[in-house]
């Protein structure tokens, strides 16, 4: 498990926005993952993703790492900001784009 956690820590810092999801951005395998990708596309920010369905060990590890039981999980600037509900809520309030732009600059 610790190897996977180390890999997760590398991944979340490898892009200003990183998302653990079911499926891929082109072929999401779950409505919540699809909705989260949709928000990121609306903001127009490039992001990296991992398909947890293809990596079951990582699916378990990420839940332990964030103490968060559901997928998708979104990281901005290496920090966990939440799942689909929070991302949608932040986007509706206009809070998500500024956060992402600040992370992209640093």
């Amino acid at each position, binding site marked *: 498990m610790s190897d996977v956690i180390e890999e997760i820590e590398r991944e979340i810092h490898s892009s200003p926005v990183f998302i653990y999801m079911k499926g891929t951005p082109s072929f999401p395998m779950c*409505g*919540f993952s699809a909705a989260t990708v949709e928000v990121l596309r609306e903001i127009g920010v490039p992001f990296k993703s991992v398909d947890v369905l293809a990596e079951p060990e990582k699916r378990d590890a990420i839940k332990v790492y964030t*103490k*968060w*039981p*559901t997928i998708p999980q979104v990281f901005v600037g290496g920090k*966990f*900001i*939440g*799942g*689909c*509900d*929070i991302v949608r*809520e*932040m986007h509706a309030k206009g809070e998500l784009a500024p956060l992402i732009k600040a992370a992209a600059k640093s």
Partner: protein
Amino acid sequence: MVSTAEIQRCVEAALPGARVQVADTTGGGDHFEVQVSADAFKGKGLVEQHQLVYGALASLMPRIHALSLRTQVPEEKVK
């Protein structure tokens, strides 16, 4: 299957005084929308607020396929 009452009971037990609304979105007992308003959320970010609710539902989560969650701090009374 999980019932809306079970979800409500678990959240209320963990967050005394919370106002909890639960909807079974498909009628199948595994897709839910949960709204929680609680004083315990005061001063906490959304991640922490949701973690409190997920913590309360930990024993039920393996039986729940999808959970949409909305949390808020109760509106303060106007002085």
